[in-house]
């Protein structure tokens, strides 16, 4: 039964692609519906699978040996990923309704873009599902690569100059990331002689150079997870991608990087070597730096989606530092990981609904504005930890840290939550400034409302191990809630203080511009060297040809000597005979 469900979950997106292709081929453009009911259902079998219970599969014929499993980690992960994909698909149908109408009127460019999106969306989903259930390296890498490259179409969808820049940044960093990942995989798997992620974790644990392997893999996955320094694609790609694509990008796909870390790092193992623990410390620092730095930079953004992208970087920074705790303080990990999964799931849905909310504020439904903004704010407040699932997930990571006495980290995380609150308020303010009336339809706000509800109720539907998550006791509430009002206050203060700047803001993508400049500068000497090489080659070809010509000239002269000989053959023969005769006579006389 579970095997049937698994096959369905993996094959269904392909069926959807096939059907979409077939109907695009058959139906006339005027009746073409790119987002049919079947298309919406692409993620549903995967969602069913997540609730089907634990299971394991091995397939020897599959690549290097397939090993897939649904366990206590991959089940909740699959659940929130598939749910978000399903909700975002419904939202997409509403979001693209106007574009579809344009395509049906015969706009070829729109037809092409919509078809591309409709085909690559299920493919991206397929990669995401596969990487979650994969327990062997090859399947995991396949899922990851499929998701990464297929998602290009999601980012570049609108085809504007900004979209192309965002997609370019996304793709370039993705290629760098893939390189780092495959390097790390080869190194670690080669040392440990293994093909599974389980073996990889054990290999990294015992290997002499384990910390370096971990570093390679962490940086590779860090491109997706937006680790500081490699995060530059997020604020460039998110504002330009369509809202539902941003939702899955920020909700589900960057979580794949996080899952990658959890899958390859020997977290929570008591025998962690000193160098690995050291690496964990560095990772902790990087995570906190991202959490604070992104908040500080993000509040100055103009585009609400850029603000939200920085919020994602900040949140992922917090998760990074929590993952790092699995290396720094292994004893805390068994208690911490359910909280981390809840954190990730809640962030996925909350960020998903925030991104979907940007499309609502751009196409306001005819509802009272205070109601709309209250709804828009809900997932944000929850994200800052002041209500609903946000509170529970904050407590889910705080209580194990309390138990193991990591108060300083708790304090830092609380201050990072202040940053989250500030970012969310700035995002809402920017949405208010850039609001537009009209045009949002039922699917659009329906999916948005479902996502908000799912975000607020995350602990109730997420299939985590029983008893791993509990409500925070009442006396702790203040300790969890305080960052939110403080954050809002900070945002208001900041707005007052920066008013003299008259709305000048920092460019999205911060370090990207630095990198671009550096590469441009580095290319100059390379180009010069290239020119020099080309000249050198031309010169050597010329000199070789000259030498050849000279040699050929010599040869020709030699040949002409021969022809002179041939010409005078009889005379020369005569001369030779005379000489010989003279020689013999001289011999005879002696």
């Amino acid at each position, binding site marked *: 039964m579970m095997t049937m469900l698994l096959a369905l979950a993996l094959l269904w997106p392909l069926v959807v692609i096939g059907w979409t292709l077939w109907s695009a081929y058959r139906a006339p453009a005027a009746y073409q519906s790119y987002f049919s009911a079947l298309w919406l259902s692409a993620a549903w079998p995967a969602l069913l699978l997540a609730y089907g219970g634990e299971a394991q599969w091995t397939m020897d014929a599959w690549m290097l040996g*397939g090993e897939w499993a649904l366990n206590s980690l991959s089940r909740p992960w699959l659940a929130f990923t598939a749910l978000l994909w399903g909700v975002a698909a419904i939202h997409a149908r509403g979001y693209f309704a106007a574009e579809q109408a344009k395509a049906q009127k015969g706009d*070829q460019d729109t037809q092409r873009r919509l078809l591309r999106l409709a085909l690559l969306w299920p493919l991206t989903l397929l990669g995401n599902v596969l990487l979650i259930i994969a327990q062997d390296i090859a399947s995991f890498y*396949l899922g990851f690569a499929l998701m990464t490259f297929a998602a290009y*179409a999601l980012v570049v969808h609108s085809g504007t100059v900004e979209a192309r820049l965002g997609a370019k940044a996304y793709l370039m960093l993705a290629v760098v990331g893939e390189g780092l990942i*495959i390097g790390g995989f*080869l*190194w670690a*798997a080669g040392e440990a*002689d293994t093909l599974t992620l389980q073996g990889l974790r054990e290999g990294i644990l015992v290997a002499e150079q384990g910390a370096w392997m971990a570093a390679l893999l962490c940086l590779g996955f860090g491109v997706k997870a937006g680790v500081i320094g490699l995060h530059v694609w997020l604020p460039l790609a998110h504002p330009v991608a369509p809202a539902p694509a941003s939702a899955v990008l920020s909700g589900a796909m960057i979580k794949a990087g996080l899952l990658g870390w959890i899958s390859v790092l020997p977290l929570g193992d008591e025998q962690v070597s000193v160098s690995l623990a050291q690496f964990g410390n560095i990772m902790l620092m990087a995570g906190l730096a991202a959490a604070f730095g992104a908040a500080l930079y993000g509040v100055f953004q103009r585009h609400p989606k850029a603000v939200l992208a920085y919020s994602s970087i900040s949140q992922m920074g917090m998760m990074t530092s929590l993952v790092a705790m699995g290396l720094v303080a292994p004893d805390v990990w068994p208690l911490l990981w359910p909280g981390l999964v809840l954190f990730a799931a809640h962030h996925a849905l909350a960020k998903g609904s925030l991104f979907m909310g940007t499309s609502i504020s751009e196409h306001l439904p005819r509802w009272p504005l205070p109601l709309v903004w209250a709804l828009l704010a809900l997932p944000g407040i929850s994200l800052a930890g002041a209500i609903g699932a946000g509170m529970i997930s904050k407590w889910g990571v705080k209580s194990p840290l309390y138990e193991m006495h990591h108060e300083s980290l708790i304090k830092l995380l609380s201050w990072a939550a202040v940053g989250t609150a500030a970012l969310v308020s700035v995002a809402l303010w920017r949405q208010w400034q850039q609001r537009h009336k009209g045009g949002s339809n039922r699917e659009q706000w329906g999916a948005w409302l479902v996502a908000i509800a799912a975000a607020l109720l995350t602990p109730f539907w997420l299939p985590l191990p029983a008893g791993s998550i509990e409500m925070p006791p009442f006396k702790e509430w203040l300790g969890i809630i305080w960052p939110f009002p403080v954050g809002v206050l900070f945002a208001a203060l900041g707005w007052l203080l920066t008013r003299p700047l008259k709305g000048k803001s920092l460019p999205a993508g911060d370090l990207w511009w630095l990198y671009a400049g550096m590469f441009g500068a580095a290319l100059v000497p390379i180009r010069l060297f290239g020119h020099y090489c080309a000249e050198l080659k031309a010169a050597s070809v010329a000199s070789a040809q000259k030498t050849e010509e000279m040699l050929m000239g010599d040869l020709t002269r030699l040949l002409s000597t021969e022809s002179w000989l041939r010409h005078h053959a009889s005379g020369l023969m005569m001369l030779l005979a005379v000489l010989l005769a003279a020689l013999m006579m001289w011999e005879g006389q002696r």
Partner: protein
Amino acid sequence: MNAAWLPLTALATSLLVVVVIFALPEEARRLRTTINLMAAVVKIILVTLMVRRVAAGHEDIFSFQVIGGVDFVLRSDALGVMFAGLSSLLWLCTTIYAIGYLEGSANRKRFFGFFSLCVASTIGIALADNLFTFLIFYEMLTLSTYPLVVHNGTQQALDAGRVYLRYTLSAGVVLLLGTVLLYSLTGDQSFSSEEGLGDYLNDHRGLLTLIFALLVGGLAVKTAMVPLHGWLPRAMVAPAPVSALLHAVAVVKAGAFGILRVVYDLFGIELSVELGVITALAVAASFTIIYGSLRAIAQEELKPRLAYSTVSQVSYVILGIGLFGPFGTVGALAHLLHQGLMKVTLFFCAGNYAEELGIHRIDEMDGAGKRMPLTSIAFTIGAFGMIGLPPVAGFITKWYLGVGAIQAEMYWVVAVLVASSTLNAMYFLPIVHRLWFRSGPAHGKGSWPKEQRLGRFETHSWLLLPMVFTALVSLGAGLFAGLPFSPLDWAARVANGEYLP
């Protein structure tokens, strides 16, 4: 039980076809096509028989003495059958493709005659059991490809043919010198002999190294290792099916296969390591990989870019040998097949673009995905395979090479592999991007350089089918690498034979 007829018939089918094709008049198009295709199918059946017999542990030998001490021997062993399988499979595909490609052009008799001769030579190379036999077919290959390279008869083609002959013939002389030296030292040395050349190590160390250098140096020209690669990008003027055959199985692969034979079967891997030539080979291969990729980025036309990609990719095979270990060997052998399948797909695609739309330059490819979806999907599969992304076959080889490098403690090789993958991405992804994400003539912007409507589908179906087939096989070889008789499985079988006698 020795079925001596088996290797001989496998060779004879192609050779016989050559004679028949040359005997038939130019106009007998239908008969020629029928005979050609039938022979290709018969050969696949024969090679399948050989595969089954080798898998069951039989090695069929056919031999006769030429003069004292020099024998002509054909033998079907695991490694040879592997190459023969690739050659016969791709013969069928490229022949079908060539029939579609050359429809209505002149000199088809000459073309198909030499084409079959070329394939017959690769079968001979695959089944040759000693250096003498190998050399005969190797030189036959050189001479039979020349008319194919210059088939168009343009000045550019003739120039390229001259460069090709200069390179390969001088390499042949070097190879011959090495062979003669070896025969004078050891007499007839079968590829299947167990003892190898280990006995001569103590007394003739320098001479053995010299022989190795001569043999591998001669073979490296066809393998297109830098700096002996100059002929390959120029030979791009040949018609697409010739390029496909040249890059996937015939010339370039014959060189790589020869190096495999020399290292594994003639010298033996232990002796090669003892001589210290293996590491040199790995370094040369790595240099070629990076250099080829860098040059590929600089190309503005499709076929030269693919040619430099071949320069880079074929050296993966040599790199695998250089890793000295079971994983490296499996990677090398599997890549011999995988690269063949992927590269033949890419060249078929390039040919299709050129035939149907007149596209030669990369910047003309904008939006071709809409006009030729199947071709573009096949190209995408091939490109992703070359980058080494799963699930295409290229990933499997990269995995084995990388793991082999780690186990041989040659960590820099992993860096080379990663750099090469990134460079591959840098020159293939822009093309894929152009195909699918840019709008071009198919969307009403400008026009194709020279559009023809060759068939009911996106192009002539004889051009389409082989390409779809090879693309599917390259995908399947990666996705189901664990199946018995997959390229990976067979490569592992050969490697086991080398390392676990």
